């Protein structure tokens, strides 16, 4: 039995480390934190669907793409560069797209849900790829540096901007997203989702509108993915259709599994380990996919509970045991 203060103490330590990191760590590692924080937001939402509701989307890159392209369209085409506006519009755009897509997808579960989400993701991908007059085709679009909190941060060069204001901005968004998600999963709504995951028939008989709740979870996870996508794009300054490609969706599932889908913190750990391990592997060996494929195979076969599952005091309930 862990003492009650173990989790808060761990969180405080991680939070302090994250705040101090730009002051202490080499710049390079600080820039690696940016995609981690963006994916962190994406995965928090994704796991509401996967870990808490029991639905595995293979098309979540659709919403990451929506978020990232929102930033590109707003900054380059419309001249709107406030990050707050970008995040808001990205969230709204994702909700508008997810409402019909989700309503159709949640009518199915298991492999059909996965296939339908994959198909929707590919629709958006081909749209981005083929309608180059609007989207820039396979070259994508440029994304201008967003203003943060109304300021252009003109005195900062690109790196200083990214490891300074943008880093703390991302950290704040991630912290807020974590807090909101923590409230969501601890709420009666979150409990309903877990009931639906464990026993949809019983949930229905208890009066929970199963499709409606799945739809809510889908919408929330889509909004999270778009916010994460909007955070992901500015550091590279460019968006392209591979953001919405199905292998990107696959990597999102991979990250959640790596960290552990049965734990609230697993997805964040998964994003962190994925980004930093990928960088380490690529620095010594150009074929990172080979290594990561092997890691994923080992995880699936030997440790389906992911990294958090290895530390868990109790065995993680596997999806197969949920029936």
């Amino acid at each position, binding site marked *: 039995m862990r003492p009650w203060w173990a989790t808060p103490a761990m969180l405080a330590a991680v939070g302090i480390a994250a705040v101090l990191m730009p002051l202490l760590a080499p710049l390079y590692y600080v820039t690696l934190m940016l995609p981690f924080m963006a994916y962190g937001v994406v995965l928090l939402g994704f796991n509401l669907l996967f870990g808490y509701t029991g639905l*595995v989307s293979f098309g979540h890159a659709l919403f990451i793409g929506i978020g990232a392209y929102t930033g590109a369209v707003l900054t380059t085409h419309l001249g709107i560069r406030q990050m707050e506006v970008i995040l808001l519009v990205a969230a709204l755009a994702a909700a508008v797209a997810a409402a019909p897509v989700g309503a159709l997808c949640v009518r199915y579960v298991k492999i059909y849900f996965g296939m339908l989400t994959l198909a929707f993701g590919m629709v958006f991908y081909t749209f981005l790829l083929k309608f180059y007059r609007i989207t820039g085709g396979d070259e994508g679009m440029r994304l201008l540096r967003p203003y943060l909190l109304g300021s252009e941060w003109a005195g900062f060069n690109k790196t200083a901007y990214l490891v300074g204001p943008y880093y703390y901005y991302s950290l704040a968004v991630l912290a807020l997203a974590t807090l909101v998600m923590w409230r969501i999963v601890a709420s009666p709504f979150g409990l309903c989702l877990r009931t639906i995951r464990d026993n949809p028939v019983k949930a229905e008989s208890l009066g929970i509108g199963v499709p409606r709740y799945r739809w809510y979870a889908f919408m929330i996870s889509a909004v999270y993915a778009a916010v994460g996508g909007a955070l992901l794009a500015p550091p590279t300054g460019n968006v392209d259709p591979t953001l919405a490609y199905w292998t990107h969706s696959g990597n999102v599932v991979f990250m959640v599994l790596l960290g552990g889908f049965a734990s609230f913190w697993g997805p964040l750990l998964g994003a962190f380990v994925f980004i930093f391990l990928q960088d380490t592997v690529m620095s010594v060996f150009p074929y990172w996919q080979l290594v990561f494929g092997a890691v994923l195979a080992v995880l*699936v076969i030997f440790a389906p509970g992911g990294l958090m599952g290895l530390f868990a005091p109790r065995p993680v309930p596997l999806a197969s045991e949920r029936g």
Partner: protein
Amino acid sequence: MTAHLVNVLMGGVFHAAILFLVASGLQLVFGVQKIFNLACGSFYALGAYSGISAVAYFTGHGGAPALFIVPLALGGLAVGLVGVVVERGLLRFVYDRDETFQLLLTFALVLMLEDVIRMTWGTAPASTGGLYLAYGQARILGTTVPVYNLIVIAASLAIALGMSWVLGRTAFGRIIRAAADNREMAEALGVDMRGLYARVFTLGTMLGTLGGALVIPATAAMSEMGVELIVEAFAVVVIGGLGSMRGAFVGALVVGVLRSIAISVYPELEMLLIYLIVIAVLLWRPRGLFGAAAA
């Protein structure tokens, strides 16, 4: 006008012939093992590169260019034996797991095989050179079609007929259908599931690698060709119905021909049209056009 139409249709049917090979492998594996194999596209890419290497070796050692199709097909089929390794080494551990994990394991294969291809054959596109037109062109209704395309279409048809004969008329086929229908019952009646799974998966893999080898004279091999094809094969099996061989056949024709028409009429629509049909089919008839029949 007719000439243009025939041209478009023949292009579509050629693509459908290739798609059918890959999709039938996917269907066979899904029908029996209930695993949706995302790596079937990677096997297709593997077959393409092995075919190129086999042809290069053959012509490099004085083989007649006119016979290039023999090493091409053999190279494709031979590399399909990697299916045994994958099934025995990885998949057999996850048969009783949730399908999410099965799907992710095949995704792990997609990641690994793409890099294996890059490591072995490099990242530059590879091709068989000018052998595509080694058999000349045939004139059909005012247009010319490479004879090679006709050979591939005929071979794919022959394989379709052969498979329906194997599945419908032989003891092996009856066992496959029984296992697809009810695994426990088949096992209780003495079917060796281990051996069957290994054979079925290898057969499915070989169909994919053969498809990759046969397509390659008409195009160039790239390391991403696998992940691109899987989404088309996916469209084929959804339209036709998961696990159904007839579904693979009809689905391949639908996808191949529609894509060809879309490219010639309004190129932007190309795959968009296919995915919209996939979504329509999933919503209107999730079992696909032939979904009820297993294997």
